[in-house]
């Protein structure tokens, strides 16, 4: 089933610019799509066609298999199903206050005032903005405006959500949070389409990439397919993501295997797999205690020196088992081939918090953490983050949670991931996917029933 499809679509602006020329695109329902291309390629224009803001000069756009009509009642139902967050949020925000701006869309859907109130606070919460409700939007920073613009579309609860350069203008943390929000929306079975100039994001996030140039589609494919085609990438003014660049350089010099890595994690795996693990055997750390064979040993940096403690500590990055007797103050050989299993637990939290449920959940979460004793804690999605924070503990991984957990696991550290609603399945799927790509088995377990 295709959520959106264009057939031979042409679009000309009134001034004669031929922005789209014979575009044929198919977007699968429930997928994550990135549209890439140089400035002026026609990406934004294409997005406008997707929710009938513009009408194609010729050709047809299909929504869920039906061709789009442009009379006012069809337009309303199209815009209910397809929401766009514009590139420049200043164009989108117009109301005197943030709250009023976010309420504009849902009120146009003729929802009741109570429902609108609920959606407004829910969407502001999802984008991580609160306390600004009664301020005029022009009083906010660029990134905050962007979040308000996103909330304005979220509140309409469309089944297809389109973001024109969602990451531009956000700080790194905001970008990580937005990426997570996109995943969360996708977990709720929404189709997500973004345009971006951030190649590393596209490579890691997208299921499928379409490349546009001069108003035409020049290529579509999965990220690894797209990014292994150097001439295509450079021909479209794009850039290969950093992990792939690094990998390419290593590969050409004979230090990595052939498979194209889409993230830093995969890059590292590729190098390790190639060079073999015994390379690591000549590392030493300063023993901060007496160690006997089979003792657990936590290593990390302290004041620039590699040290080994018998307990987990702040800068610890790996855990292994000692093979020999070492006295305090002596050097302990780090044997990375002797890394114990680092488990990953995925705990599903509810996707919304009703009334007093949170207090109960907090005790359950606390209990889980105390019984399984994970070395690291990850949190995905707003609800999970807020529950973990309320236990008084801090999560170690708040962005790129699954990658971080898998990486920690490869270094012998176990992680408990709290994931909001369907994001739990997403996390499980992602680990399975990484396992398959890396040819490794990270043991993970869903602890569903407890919450």
């Amino acid at each position, binding site marked *: 089933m295709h959520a959106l499809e264009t057939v031979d679509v042409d679009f000309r602006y009134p001034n004669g610019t031929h922005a789209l020329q014979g575009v044929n695109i198919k977007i699968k329902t429930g997928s994550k799509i990135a549209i890439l291309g140089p400035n002026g390629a026609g990406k934004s224009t294409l997005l406008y066609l997707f929710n009938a803001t513009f009408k194609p000069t010729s050709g047809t756009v299909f929504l869920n298999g039906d061709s789009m009509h442009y009379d006012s009642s069809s337009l309303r139902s199209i815009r209910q199903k397809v929401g766009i967050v514009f590139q420049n949020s200043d*164009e989108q925000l117009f109301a005197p206050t943030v709250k009023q701006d976010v309420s504009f869309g849902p009120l146009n859907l003729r929802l009741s005032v109570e429902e609108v109130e609920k959606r407004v606070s829910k969407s502001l919460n999802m984008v991580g903005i609160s306390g600004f409700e009664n301020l005029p939007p022009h009083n906010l920073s660029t990134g905050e405006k962007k979040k308000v613009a996103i909330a304005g579309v979220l509140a309409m609860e469309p089944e297809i959500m389109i973001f024109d350069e969602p990451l531009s203008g956000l700080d790194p943390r905001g970008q990580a949070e937005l990426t997570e929000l996109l995943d969360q929306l996708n977990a709720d079975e929404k189709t997500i389409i973004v345009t971006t100039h951030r190649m590393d994001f596209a490579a890691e996030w997208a299921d499928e990439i379409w490349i546009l140039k001069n108003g035409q589609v020049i290529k579509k494919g999965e990220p690894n397919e797209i990014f292994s085609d150097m001439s295509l990438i450079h021909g479209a003014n794009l850039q290969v993501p950093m992990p792939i660049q690094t990998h390419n350089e290593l590969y050409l010099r004979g230090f990595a295997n052939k498979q194209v890595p889409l993230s830093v994690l995969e890059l590292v795996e590729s190098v390790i797999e190639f060079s073999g693990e015994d390379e690591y055997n000549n590392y030493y750390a300063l023993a901060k205690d007496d160690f006997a064979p089979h003792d657990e040993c936590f290593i990390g940096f302290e004041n620039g020196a590699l040290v080994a403690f018998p307990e987990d500590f702040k800068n610890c990055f790996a855990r292994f088992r000692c093979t020999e007797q070492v006295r305090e103050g002596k050097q302990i050989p780090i044997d990375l081939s002797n890394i114990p299993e680092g488990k990953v637990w995925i705990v599903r939290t509810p996707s919304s918090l009703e009334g007093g449920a949170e207090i109960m959940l907090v005790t359950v979460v606390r209990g889980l953490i105390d019984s399984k004793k994970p070395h690291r804690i990850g949190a995905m999605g707003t609800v999970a983050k807020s529950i973990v924070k309320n236990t008084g503990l801090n999560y170690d991984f708040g962005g790129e949670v699954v990658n971080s957990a898998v990486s920690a696991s490869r270094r012998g550290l176990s992680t408990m991931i709290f994931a909001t609603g369907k994001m739990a399945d997403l996390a499980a799927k992602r680990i399975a996917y990484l396992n398959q790509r890396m040819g490794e088995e990270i043991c993970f377990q869903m602890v569903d029933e407890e919450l």
Partner: protein
Amino acid sequence: MQFLEQFTLKNKLNGVSGKLKTLFAVLTLLVCSFSTTFIVPLLVFCIMLAFTVVVAGIPPRFYAKLMLAPAGFGLVSFVLMLFFFGKEPFFSIHAGGLTLTATKDGFDMALISVGRMLGSVSCLLFLALTTPMADIFTVLKKLKLPDVFIDLSMLIYRFIVVMVEEALRMEYAQKMRLGYSDVKGSFRALSLLAGNLFVRSWDSADKMLTAMNSRGYDGIIHVLDDESPIPRLHLLGLAGFELVLVSLNLILPR
């Protein structure tokens, strides 16, 4: 313009219902401008001053600056009316070979009109400094003004900000490249700025409409309004206050 707005968002009367503040300012303004004695406007002036500066915590310096223009205008009008209106002689000034005669009825008229003017200005300043635009729009809507009027004011409000920001940005960009270094250059830069401002505002209006359409705009702007009612007690207090002002007008001699 931006400054005024900053105060509406951050003053000690933020917690008070915007509707109440608007009603308070507008009703008092009406009573003040129909006053038949100068005492009521004077009273209004003092009360509004106290509310704005003491209760809401607007810096007195800033307030004084805003008051400067109307006060100057008031002074000039006062002098003019005193000497050039009315018939009944009051007192005379001999300066050089000239004799200026002030009139009694001119004095009364000057007192009332200038008083009304200052009183009304203080009401407006109270409104402008303590009440966010959003609240004023809500009141306008409650008063059942036509949608077109309210939507238009909302968009104008938004576009004033857009235009000011745009103009400042362009001016800055010009200055950075030495646009205003001499008189001739200044004229050229200014004309470019003005022309461009028009084009850009037009363009951003067009884009905003596109964005509004994509969220289902149907010709009327629907937004959530602050539905919280004005507390009974406050309403009663307001009614009492206005009644006192009105009755003062009736009791006091003209």
